[in-house]
């Protein structure tokens, strides 16, 4: 009798522990699937925004992703670490303001799931550790550089328009010209200029030097655009800024 009770109790405990274990495994698998789904959705949205608006996917912000989501429903959950009722962007964000994933090192299952997802892209540059947080850059797997040329072209056109303000100033001073040139240098699309800026294969460049050379490259593109233009206005702008560009 006592033996039976003991056996029943033991079986009940084993059943409960096993159920809890199975449930935990199931829950872990669900969480892993959800985080992978979220990655796929955000990655596809960034690619869509990049194509639609000629923007580098790495610079797509969380606000731009939200603008792309349909109104209503539960779309907030794709930006969150889990899909619990109580989770919100304020207390449990997965997508940071710069549009990338941020996961604490304690979230081991989610980290594992994301690493497994990213493995298929064979790209080690997408993960960065800052303090206890891992930062996953999204859309790095997009190897197509066509959109980068579009971004550069868009920035060049905008620079031409901005410089053309100088023709409305009678006899613009050197300071006027330098001010507008500073404004266009600020438009340099550093991430989209994909050239390595080296003069030869063996040259080693510091980050600052690469930045300076990208700015010089961008100014050269603007100057070429002005010089080749058939527009009288742009020719006039060229004559004003050619020595400073």
């Amino acid at each position, binding site marked *: 009798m006592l033996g039976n009770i003991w056996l029943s109790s033991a079986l009940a405990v084993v059943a409960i522990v096993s159920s809890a274990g199975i449930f935990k495994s199931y829950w872990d698998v669900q969480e892993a699937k959800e985080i992978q*789904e979220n990655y*796929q*959705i955000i990655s*596809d949205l960034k690619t869509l*925004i990049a194509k639609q*608006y000629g*923007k580098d996917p790495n610079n797509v*912000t*969380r*606000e*731009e992703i*939200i*603008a792309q*989501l349909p*109104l*209503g*429903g*539960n*779309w*907030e*959950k*794709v930006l969150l670490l889990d899909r619990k009722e109580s989770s*919100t*962007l*304020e207390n449990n964000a997965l997508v940071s*303001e710069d549009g990338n994933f941020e996961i604490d090192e304690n979230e081991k299952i989610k980290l594992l799931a994301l690493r497994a997802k990213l493995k298929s892209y064979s790209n080690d540059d997408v993960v960065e550790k800052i303090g206890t947080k891992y930062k996953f850059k999204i859309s790095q797997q997009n190897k197509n550089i066509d959109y980068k040329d579009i971004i550069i072209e*868009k920035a060049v056109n*905008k620079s031409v*328009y*901005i410089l*053309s303000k100088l*023709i*409305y100033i*009678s006899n613009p001073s050197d300071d006027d010209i330098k001010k507008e040139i500073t404004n266009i240098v600020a438009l340099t699309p550093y991430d989209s200029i994909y050239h390595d800026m080296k003069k030869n294969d063996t040259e080693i460049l510091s980050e600052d030097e690469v930045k300076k050379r990208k700015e010089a490259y961008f100014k050269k593109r603007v100057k070429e655009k002005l010089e080749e233009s*058939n*527009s*009288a*206005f742009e*020719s*006039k702008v060229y*004559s004003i800024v050619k020595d400073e560009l």
Partner: protein
Amino acid sequence: MKKYLILLIISFSFLYSDSSTTFIEKQKLIIKTKKIIEEEEFIARAFERYILENAKIPTLSDLKNNNYLSTTFSPTYFTEDDSKDFSIISRKNKMKNRLTLSVESVRINSGIADLYNSSTYRNRTYLDGTEIGIFIRDDFARHIYFLSSTADIDIVTCSDSNRDKYCIENDHMYIYKRGSDKSKDILLMYYKLSKFRTGPIIIVDDPTIYDNSEFEHIPSGAILFDIKGKKHIKTNKSIVRIQ
């Protein structure tokens, strides 16, 4: 196909539940920001078309008709409590910045400010200091803008007693160099509005004043005749006599 099917299934799972109220409010504000930018792009296109068709820099009221923005056009604001004095700045290719017209809670929202100020949704407009600038693409529209904005005048008919150094008569633009009074004005050039890009443009027969800024905006390749009938061509650098 498989990928889209998976995305569709995921979509349904999101549709049958609700986001937090805070998120819905945030999303509505973001979508409104996008709508405001789209409206500014719409105004920028109408602004350039108005200049081309009327040879005048428009105000917002000029654009509120069925040829341009429609009579029912009403600007969108971030909130009901925003200052409602959105307009195009007089004789400038700029309009007021609706973010600076908004209430403080919206103005200090860095996500909204970054979105509004960025060029993601902008093609014909840009943040110009504290205002929203309009890119004018067409050479003739730029020319009219140059004449009107630098002289700070509306270009009126030549018979108008208020006419300034630029005026229009019978579909032709007349450009004068102003003398001490109107009788001493020198006619620098005139042309049919529709022929600005190609010519013929009739110009004064005094090469010493061809460096006047008004000549610089004649498109390269346009054919010019001076009043004595000698043929010239406009190049990127100067006006060259060819006959």
